């Protein structure tokens, strides 16, 4: 096979412009395919990071907008297998002006002491952490929030309440970074809870509770234990892994899986067309050469192999270009708004890289097979007589 390598290479570069155009065209399509596969992999196939695998979330079974009674928190804390549980309360609210969607970022009310135990990915200097814990009106913000809104440690900010009829006047004590994304503000839920002017419908209920379990193996039993103890209560709960909880939000936006798969299908088909077209053109213009090769004693199998290899070489080069482009795009996506921690950390994993290359090669084989087969079967005399 090795002795044909130079022949394959020479054939591939005999029409440099065509090869270059094909590689570019395949590169762009494969970059898209790679990107969609990377997102699919990150959302549905990748392993849950070890810290996240220990976390669960509980909400009202009917819907996240309905609350759970306040005493559920203590009940959940006492459930065997649960190490910590804390409120994870969506405050929403308005920063500056509600009409500009750029002013939006997530604001969660939590238990500051437990936050760093449960969300162990959150990184910030120890003194900022302590300052936040010590101040009831303190908050910490993610790096992305800090950069986007020009907010720094020591600044104050006001979040006008919309769901809750109260405003938050918060002191920023820290700027954190986290592998789970850094576009959230965390504040003490006690700030809301201890507001005596609010009716109990706001202060003595939780809409979601974040839970840390002892071991990853205990997850299914803890989930069952929590939901079972409220099964006959008037408010039933739904407990799931934090990842399933987050994916649920993403899936609610629309049928993400179907969208990713249909884009993949459209792109794959396009690549198939581009590649088949190129190989058909390439083979068509050298029918006479094939005749000469045959005269020199090349077997049909060898000719088939040479053409297939050429197609695979071009597709592989396209995959390399596609990988490069996809890596750049992933970097851009990481800078954008994080819909989930998986998207915030998006990169082309080795698995996806291999999948990209293999699909490129498979498409190359499939698309080149007909022209290659025709070339290998053409009778010598016909081939030599052929004029294009």
């Amino acid at each position, binding site marked *: 096979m090795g002795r044909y390598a130079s022949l394959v290479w020479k054939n591939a570069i005999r029409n440099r412009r065509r090869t270059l155009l094909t590689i570019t*065209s395949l590169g762009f399509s494969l970059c898209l395919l790679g990107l969609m596969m990377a997102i699919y992999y990150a959302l549905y196939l990748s392993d849950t990071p070890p810290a996240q695998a220990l976390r669960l979330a509980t909400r009202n079974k009917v819907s996240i907008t309905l609350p759970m009674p306040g005493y559920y928190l203590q009940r959940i804390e006492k459930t065997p297998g649960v190490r910590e549980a804390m409120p994870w309360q969506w405050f929403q609210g308005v920063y500056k002006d509600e009409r500009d969607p750029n002013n939006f970022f997530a604001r969660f009310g939590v238990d500051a002491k437990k936050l760093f135990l449960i969300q162990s990915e959150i990184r910030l200097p120890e003194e900022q952490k302590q300052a936040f814990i010590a101040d009831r009106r303190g908050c910490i913000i993610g790096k992305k929030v800090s950069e986007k809104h020009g907010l720094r440690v020591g600044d104050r900010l006001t979040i006008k309440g919309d769901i809750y009829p109260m405003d938050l006047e918060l002191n920023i004590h820290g700027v954190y970074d986290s592998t789970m994304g850094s576009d959230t503000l965390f504040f003490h839920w006690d700030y809301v809870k201890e507001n005596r002017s609010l009716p109990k419908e706001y202060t003595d209920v939780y809409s979601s509770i974040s839970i840390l379990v002892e071991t990853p193996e205990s997850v299914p039993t803890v989930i069952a234990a929590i939901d079972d103890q409220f099964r006959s209560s008037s408010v039933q709960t739904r407990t799931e892994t934090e990842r399933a909880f987050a994916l649920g939000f993403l899936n609610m936006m629309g049928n993400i899986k179907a*969208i990713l798969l249909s884009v993949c299908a459209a792109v794959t088909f396009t690549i198939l067309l581009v590649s088949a077209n190129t190989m058909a053109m390439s083979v068509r213009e050298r029918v006479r050469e094939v005749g000469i090769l045959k005269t020199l004693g090349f077997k049909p199998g060898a000719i088939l192999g040479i053409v297939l290899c050429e197609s695979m070489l071009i597709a592989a080069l396209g995959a390399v270009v596609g990988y490069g482009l996809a890596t750049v795009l992933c970097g851009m996506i990481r800078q954008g708004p994080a819909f989930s921690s998986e998207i915030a950390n998006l990169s082309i994993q080795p698995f996806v890289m291999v999948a990209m290359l293999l699909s490129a090669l498979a498409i190359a084989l499939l698309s080149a097979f007909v022209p290659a087969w025709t070339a290998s079967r053409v009778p010598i005399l016909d081939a030599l007589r052929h004029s294009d």
Partner: protein
Amino acid sequence: MAIPLTYNLRNLAVRKGTTLMTALGIGLTVAVMLTTMALVAGLQGVFSETGNPLHVLVMRKGSTSELVSTVTRPLFQEVKMKAGIAKSKSGDPLASLEMIEMVNLPSVDNPDGSNITIRGLLPAGLEMRDYIRLQSGRWFQPGKPELVIGKSVAARFPDAQIGRKIRLARNDWEVVGVMDAANTAANSEMFADLNQLAAESNRTEALSSILIRAVDPVAVAALVQNLESDRKLNVFAQTEAAYYESQSSSGALFEYLGMFVAAIMAVGSAFAAMNTMYAAVARRAKEIGTLRVLGFSRTAILTSFLVESLALAFAGGLLGILLVLPLNGVTTGITGNTFSEVAFHFRVTPPIMLKGILFALVLGAVGGLFPAGNAARKEILAALREA
């Protein structure tokens, strides 16, 4: 003098394999773009058709959606007394105090569950929404845990069917009717008696919004002005139409994603078209020489090849339209700003098809320009001598 168009069309027909593959590549790119546009158009259609221009929606100041807004009963009494509100058949002001709840049920697209809006409303609220017809079953009775569901809910949520019970906060609620709300967002909602629903979720005082009908278009502006400037009320008033218009940004994420995919695919198919056209120029070098000998100018050659590329792309655009036409009318649902599913039909409208053709032609022009220039630059003798 120009080279006749039939020359190009016959050339495309001779190389039908290549033509078809290139056109299909362009067609797929166009199809991705058109699918995105059809989705956004369908979604915007629902939101733009929802909302009577005479209706004014009142929410708490700072609220961007009914879901996060809170209004109280005393507030309702004050709003109801404002001047310029139309009267109902029974002579009361046409004003409905409403509340929004959610229930999460598995949908045909999302077995893990999607949110559905449940709207609790007063009899006036039903009277104001005169475009809603009962499709089957009956209306809910005040004081009973009963639901009337929109026809999209009935079609998309297997658990939501007449006779079935749906568990809300405490009790099982029976589905008693299905309503047809023309092409409005109410098709994706469930309606229930306000007081019953408020009691169910223990929110008897904190309700969501107030809908009022003005007597005439002039009174709409005056009412909005009056409510907004009343600092004691602390409310945000807008026309119902304006509110739903603002919800149509729910499709923005899909629009960005679709356009991004289409843009990248466009680069790929423009390069593929370029490849095809370069091959066409190379194959027909002798013909180009002959045409020049016959007296056709360089400009005529350039135009001819460009036209051929455009014709190829046009065919691609048509293929793209053919690919997305079956989507027209297909129902899907997405969850946007309102945090609950809104069902809509894909809409492949003539303006959208036209955009698809234009997009294809742009790809054809980009892909054809350099090869056509290459053809035009050929020297007569060299071209005739080429193999």
